[in-house]
């Protein structure tokens, strides 16, 4: 599949007046409308708002010193609030919701002249790994429309891969940026917990939620992270740590870096093409002068079960606010209790309900210690595993997913199989460390396969550096 335009290419065209932002935006709006019939990547395409933003961007571009993101069209996951543009989180309970404010990360990009062309379909409230848990229908993978694009930020990945926008802003709680990036052949970063503000993100699991970019190149991801990262007084979990100039790190050599291969991530049932691409990935790293080190994260097998206690528990609390009373879609029932029950029954897809139910159960009196507290203790052990290996190595290399994109409908009736799709993503998510998925080749049938680099907390520059070098030798 032909790779579309990158941020750096668009910035160059805009700067040299080869094209205006309005022209570029019109081109992308046309592409988005045309391909959406097949891919279903957008829930909302906001033509008028986009053209207004583009016209404003063109004014900025006429002056010197415009930012590379100025005038460049992008899309936003629908679980992220955009001022004046409908934001449904892919659930009917918010079908009519128009936020009066931007999420902090979106506002930062808009302030620089970024142009939102639409809102991306996703698994409702970020619940899923296939984008099938959406009230607005499944998204199709542009590499093969019988396959899922991954999830939960599946519409975002499909839209970027099909070049229906230049880049996308997604949300990653347990792999929701990285896994769809790998299924669609893109670069996707989950930042460290606390690195980027979550203000204006529909909350899912507050102790894990992060906001991250999906783009066509690692360089684009680095440009976006420079803008998105940083403390925000509206999100008290953001850390007051200076944001590095990530793009300055990309060209540095990685000779002598120790790259850990956690054996638990390679010994399971890997799809044969994933295993083959990972062997090639290791060779690429050796060519770059890295030293491969066999390491162990002994609690890996407990990451998914820990995740599916902690996350539903926090989900059930966070989703308690959605009842159709103050905003969203209200039930017409006369009694208050019935109105809550019917609005929530009609407004949440099944996976949201399952998580609310599991969360309600594990937090209920008599079960809290056995489930939630125990999961928090195992979480501590998982964090210690990462702390230990990062005493030995600079970064870790793992497959992003055990398999390439699967068929639409293949796992949708089996929640546990769906949960296990994130087996290589849950551990780092619980530990709060950054991870990036980058393309590592394709399967025998041409489906993209991703490799993941994981670094210690707040060391985004390390994964961006090695992923950029890895990406470059891949194209030689």
């Amino acid at each position, binding site marked *: 599949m032909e790779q579309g335009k990158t941020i750096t290419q668009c910035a160059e065209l805009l700067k040299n007046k080869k094209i205006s932002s309005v022209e570029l935006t019109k081109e992308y709006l046309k592409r988005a409308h045309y391909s959406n019939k097949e891919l279903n990547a957008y829930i909302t395409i906001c033509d008028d708002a986009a053209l207004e933003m583009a016209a404003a961007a063109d004014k900025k571009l006429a002056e010197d010193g415009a930012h590379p993101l100025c005038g460049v069209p992008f899309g936003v996951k629908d679980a992220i609030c955009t001022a004046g543009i409908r934001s449904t989180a892919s659930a009917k309970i918010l079908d009519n919701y*128009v936020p*009066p*404010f931007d999420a902090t990360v979106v506002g930062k990009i808009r302030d620089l002249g970024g142009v939102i062309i639409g809102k991306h379909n996703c698994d409702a409230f970020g619940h899923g790994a296939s984008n099938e848990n959406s009230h607005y229908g499944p998204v199709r993978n542009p590499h093969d429309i019988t396959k899922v694009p991954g999830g939960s930020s599946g519409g975002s990945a499909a839209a970027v891969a099909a070049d229906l926008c230049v880049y996308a802003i997604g949300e990653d709680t347990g792999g929701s940026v990285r896994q769809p990036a790998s299924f669609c052949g893109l670069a996707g970063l989950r930042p460290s*917990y*606390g690195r980027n503000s979550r203000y204006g993100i529909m909350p899912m699991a507050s*102790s894990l939620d992060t906001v991250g970019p999906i783009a066509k190149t690692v360089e684009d991801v680095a440009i976006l992270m420079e803008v998105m990262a940083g403390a925000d*007084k509206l999100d*008290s*979990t953001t*850390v007051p740590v200076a944001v590095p100039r990530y793009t300055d790190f990309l060209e540095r050599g990685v000779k002598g870096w120790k790259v850990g291969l956690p054996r638990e991530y390679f010994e399971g049932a890997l799809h044969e093409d994933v295993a083959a691409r990972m062997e090639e990935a290791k060779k690429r790293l050796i060519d770059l002068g890295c030293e491969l080190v066999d390491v162990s994260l002994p*609690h890996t097998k*407990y990451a998914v*079960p*820990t995740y*599916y206690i902690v996350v539903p528990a926090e989900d*059930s609390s966070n989703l308690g606010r959605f*009842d*159709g*009373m*103050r*905003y*969203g879609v*209200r039930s017409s*029932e*006369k*009694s*208050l*209790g*019935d*109105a*809550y*029950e*019917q609005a*929530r*029954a009609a407004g*949440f897809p099944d996976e949201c*309900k*399952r998580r609310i*139910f*599991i969360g*309600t*159960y594990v937090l*209920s009196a008599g079960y809290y210690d*056995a*489930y939630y*507290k*125990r*999961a*928090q*203790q*195992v*979480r*501590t*052990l998982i*964090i210690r595993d990462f702390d230990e290996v990062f005493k030995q190595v600079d970064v870790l290399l793992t497959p992003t997913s055990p398999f390439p994109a699967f068929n639409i409908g293949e796992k949708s009736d089996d*929640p*546990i199989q769906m949960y296990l799709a994130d087996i290589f993503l849950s551990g780092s998510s619980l*530990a*709060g460390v950054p991870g990036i998925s980058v393309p590592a080749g394709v399967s025998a049938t041409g489906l993209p396969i991703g490799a993941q680099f994981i670094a210690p*907390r707040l060391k985004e520059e390390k994964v961006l550096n090695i992923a950029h070098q890895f990406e470059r030798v891949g194209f030689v």
Partner: protein
Amino acid sequence: MSNIDAAKIAKLARIALTQEEQAKFQAQLSDIIGFVSQLQEVDVSGVEPTAQVTGLEDVLRSDVVEACDEDTRKKLRAQFPARKDDLLQVPAVFE
């Protein structure tokens, strides 16, 4: 331990279920609880639980009201599912 009662949980979570849905969720929830129960085999004695990973503690802000402009107020009110003048209208709490 995985004696989850879908009907009771759904009631607590304020989500109405049909008979058919109740049966489906009952089976799925039992499977999920069975799956996550493998954590029971981990030795967690003396291990502190992790509630958050930032290391930040007691993040405070000054206790001052921040103004909200009329335009934002208007947009917020526009989201009300039912209203009477500028007030949010809800079903009666007591009948």
